[in-house]
């Protein structure tokens, strides 16, 4: 009845939820139990980047094929990725409150996240400011590609290059994920959780795409 991957996402999450609370976690200084937030907060960001990758792919395909359906896909994927990013920021803030004692601190990763959100809010400002659908599609596809590349530089490259005092793993003097942050038990929950969230994001995307297509046909 439903495609297999939807049930797969549900099944994975059904396993992830109890394991996220009950499973073994590596004991870390400062983090302690809050390390379980990894399964919620970090997965949001990973899923966001995967979905944004999909949006960039749709944007490129639009520019090649000039088919407005691909523009719709790019816009919807960006929208869902933005929601994931916002949830990622809020869960990160909750985490920061319990570990670093403040909701927001001066950290390159955090500021990168804030700027990413701003850049994608600007994407929607751009979209709303143009009426001609072709023009809108063209410019927002170009902007989407441009912004994605710069955001990858900002969030994934810059914080690693600078010897600044970041509290996120892998940067500054902090040990990276690979070193001893994640035990194997945790990986077994973490990676499937990323997959499941991405699939759920994709599900939401598929439904909103169908709704939008129907709306477009009824309008026409």
């Amino acid at each position, binding site marked *: 009845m439903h495609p297999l991957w939807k049930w797969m996402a549900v099944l994975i999450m059904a396993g992830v939820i*109890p394991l*996220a609370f009950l499973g073994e976690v590596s004991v870390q200084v400062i983090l*302690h139990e809050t390390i*379980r937030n990894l399964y919620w907060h970090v997965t949001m960001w990973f899923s966001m980047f995967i979905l944004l990758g999909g949006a960039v792919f749709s944007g490129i395909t639009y520019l090649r094929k000039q088919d407005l359906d691909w523009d719709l896909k790019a816009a919807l994927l960006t929208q869902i990725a933005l929601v994931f990013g916002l949830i990622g920021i809020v869960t990160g803030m909750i985490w920061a409150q319990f570990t670093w004692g403040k909701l927001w601190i001066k950290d390159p990763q955090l500021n990168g996240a804030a700027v990413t959100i701003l850049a994608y809010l600007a994407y929607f400002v751009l979209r709303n400011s143009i009426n001609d659908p072709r023009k809108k599609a063209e410019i927002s596809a170009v902007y989407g590609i441009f912004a994605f590349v710069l955001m990858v530089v900002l969030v994934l490259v810059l914080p690693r290059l600078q010897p600044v005092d970041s509290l996120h793993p892998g940067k500054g003097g902090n*040990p990276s994920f690979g070193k001893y942050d994640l035990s194997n038990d945790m990986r077994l929950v973490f990676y499937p959780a990323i997959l499941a969230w991405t699939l759920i994001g994709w599900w939401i995307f598929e439904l909103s795409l169908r709704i939008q297509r*129907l709306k477009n046909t*009824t309008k026409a």
Partner: protein
Amino acid sequence: MTYLRFFALCCLIFSQAPLTAQDSTKASASVLAQAGDTLADLNALNRGILEFQVDLGDSTWYQMSNQGHVILAQDVVEGDRLPHLEIKTKTADNEFYENRIRVLTQQGTLTIHVSSDKIEMATGLRANGKIGVVIAVVFVLFLTLIGLLLYQQQSLRKWEKTQTKT
């Protein structure tokens, strides 16, 4: 409808907040110290530290003296990387405290941030079974989200059928 789905997603994520709440006794301080300075503030911060362990490769317990302990700059600075030291401490009340000391070098000066947390893992929550409630709540939220998605999918299917007929 769309916003409702997103709201459910948000609820699901936020529901983990109660678990992250720790009843911790927090204290933190920033000390500007020269290389080789004593860390007397560690004592002042955590009244009654008896022994501590510094993560410098060995795992010996040092006795905490009244004067604090000397950490030499060459012990902690590896090249131009900013080292990240972890200090475990035992106190008089036999409770474990964990302290983290971050050492930043700026032209020979060490900035040492000391923060201390009383460790309180959520073992109690897990032992008396209350964790089950948390998991159940998260499950209900997650199933609500999936239910909403399925409901939407069904109604979409009907809508699409009427669309193809006309």
